[in-house]
């Protein structure tokens, strides 16, 4: 058994608006002197610490948790899962 850090990034699917990202872009960033930024998207991340026999199991386990427990709402969001050795 080994310990893994698994990062789950939850973000809006393409096509679903992200008012928070837009607000940060328009009201904060572009108001200032930082004109080279063209887009901001927000996401939420959950960092799991998990003990499994290998990286692959860790990943599939977390995938299962995300789907079963509705860690993300499939109607509007998607997840990306990245596994790292702890």
């Amino acid at each position, binding site marked *: 058994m080994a310990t893994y850090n698994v990062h789950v990034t939850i973000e809006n699917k393409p096509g679903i608006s992200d*008012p*928070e990202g837009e*607000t940060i872009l328009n009201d904060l960033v572009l108001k200032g002197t930082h004109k080279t930024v063209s887009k901001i998207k927000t996401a939420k991340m959950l960092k799991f610490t998990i003990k499994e026999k290998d990286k692959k199991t860790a990943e599939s386990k977390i995938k299962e948790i995300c789907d079963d*427990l*509705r860690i993300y*709402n499939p*109607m*509007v969001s998607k997840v990306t899962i990245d596994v790292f050795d702890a």
Partner: protein
Amino acid sequence: MKVGVVVFPGSNCDRDMYHVLTDVFNLDAQYYWHEKSLPKNIDAVILPGGFSYGDRLRAGVIAAHSPIIKDVQKMAKKGIPVLGVCNGFQILVESGLLPGVLLKNESLNFMCEWTNLIVENNKTPFTNQFKLNQKIPIPIANGEGRYYVDDKTLKELKKKNQIVFRYDEVVNGSSNRIAGVCNEDGNVVGMMPHPERAVESEINPIDNKPSSLIFESLLSKMGVSN
């Protein structure tokens, strides 16, 4: 008739709802803690507002996994009236009892204000005393109240008459100004605004009669006269 008020850790409109059911409409209401089960002989179930589990991860998602939700699902299937208000609506959506999802308000802020609803479906157990298109002055209080469905689902909702309430004006950016929906059978209703805050004239600065019809609809559905 017996009405169950389901209480989750972090519910905070449970006592308000209970007061309205018992003191205003003389119903036999009872609290049910989320780990308990619902009795078989219950006549209606209400999921009140609040911040179950502190709205963590997403409003309603953790409570949707509570043991009592299985019972609510069974009751819903049997056709028993179920109402979710605010966080209760979010929980119904997250537990798959109602379609759609509730996102952060477009303003990105919590919004507490009075608004007007339009009744779009007067066939549900909570709207049968309304005329179609009747207006209801009512307060909202939520941070994640923007109802969202994709275009395809929206068409379905319209076709199956599942849109129950719409806002009279744009309030939070919700799809089609939707404020409340029901399941296909019409017995499970979810709404973001708070009827329990609007049925008493003392605290309703506009008109408490329209909101009262939500509860009177339930009474009439059950054949009880108030």
